[in-house]
């Protein structure tokens, strides 16, 4: 039995850094694409066109109700069949995590749109603010403002979920960390080190969520 050696992970800091960069890059790309997809999906779910509404609802429920790991395998094995060529691991990972992020952020937008009080719409009609003006200058800014804290939480969740792409062989923080642990036979030290790195990124973000939320709630308390 080996003793716990906290210095082991430090020998591999450069490899871990490369893995972290991959995890962060993937999270940021999928978050940006996922927010856009999520906003469009939230609008589609309010559409008067039934097939569009049904499709959007099916997509959201499917991706919210199944394990992300299985979604990843679906995309990795089905995307090449659908496209007729191999899109590459990175592109497949982006597609998979974007679809997941889109599903969870669409719910965020749906809730924030619903939380705009009915009286705001009455006021706008009384002031003659209708149609595009209403959507662009009153509804959209308030929906975005109300969505920000939850979107930040979505970002933290996505960053942690991104560890799953290691299962399909992407060289992210999780993959590199576990490879090192297999090779060195130091799983406890390496996995703890990985957890600390994930935590070091996620924790400040969750703290920011709390602060931003308090600020926005103060603003919206009218």
């Amino acid at each position: 039995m080996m003793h716990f050696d906290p210095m082991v992970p430090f020998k591999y800091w450069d490899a871990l850094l490369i893995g972290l960069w991959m995890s962060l890059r993937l999270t940021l790309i999928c978050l940006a694409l996922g927010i856009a997809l999520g906003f469009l999906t939230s609008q589609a779910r309010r559409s008067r066109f039934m097939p569009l509404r049904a499709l959007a609802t099916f997509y959201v429920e499917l991706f919210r109700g199944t394990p992300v790991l299985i979604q990843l395998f679906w995309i990795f094995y089905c995307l090449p069949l659908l496209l007729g060529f191999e899109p590459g691991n990175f592109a497949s990972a982006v597609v998979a995590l974007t679809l997941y992020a889109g599903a969870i952020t669409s719910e965020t937008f749906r809730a924030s749109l619903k939380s705009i009080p009915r009286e705001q719409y009455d006021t706008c009609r009384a002031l003659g603010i209708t149609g595009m003006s209403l959507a662009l200058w009153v509804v959209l800014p308030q929906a975005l403002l109300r969505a920000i804290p939850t979107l930040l939480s979505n970002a933290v969740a996505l960053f942690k979920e991104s560890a799953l792409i290691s299962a399909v062989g992407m060289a992210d923080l999780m993959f590199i960390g576990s490879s090192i642990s297999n090779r060195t036979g130091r799983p406890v030290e390496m996995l703890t080190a990985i957890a600390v790195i994930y935590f070091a990124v996620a924790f400040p973000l969750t703290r920011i969520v709390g602060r931003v939320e308090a600020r926005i709630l103060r603003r919206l308390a009218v």
Partner: protein
Amino acid sequence: MAQDKLLKIHNLHKSYGDLEIFKGLTLSMDRGDRLVIIGPSGGGKSTLLRIVMGLEDIVGGDIYMDGKPYILRDGAKTKIDRKLQARVGMVFQHYTLFPHLDILRNLTLAPVKTRGMSRAEAEEKAMGLLTRFGLDAKAHAYPSQLSGGQKQRVAIARALMLDPDLLLFDEVTSALDPELVAEVEAVMMELAEAGMPMMIVTHDMHFARNIASRVVFAAGGVVVEDGPPEQVLDAPQVARTREFVERVFAKKR
């Protein structure tokens, strides 16, 4: 036509499902009128204002403004003349300012985006109104930084930006702490003295007596009594009004 009434509500019917709110309500208003509507709660006072603002469908009847058809029941649809609607303004119980905009932008949004007023012109007009109401120092504050009384004065200023010919006040002091009621009522009195036609729903009988040129007691879906405040509040002619007024004033004492 000078003799045309500013507003003429004729045989108004309104219901929510099985609940009949108005059963042929008829009421008219002159340019110099400041109408206070009183009546039992749940009797549709706020609904009446919302209908006049064009926020509600009606079941039957018609409303004319300056002799022109404003709101009509046409077959299965309520038809509202948007041009005439633009001449009516409304202030709501819960202020409903835009929380994402500062006070100045709360005032300028509607005129700039929907009336084609230039930003400079709108801002000048807004600052004029804010100064008049003692709120110029708050022009760049956000609604959440204001007291209830200040918010309600901003809401009144916002409605005035569009130069309404008729201003509707729906229980505008009901959500306020008692010590903030006076500042809002003072602004309304100032508008009354400047000749602004108003239709007011309030629970404050003392204020009603001060500001009204006419008091309308509505109950059971119709107008029960309509006359100057000295009559309706102090010496009601109809038994039902007398009962209501006595009960309301008894509660106060």
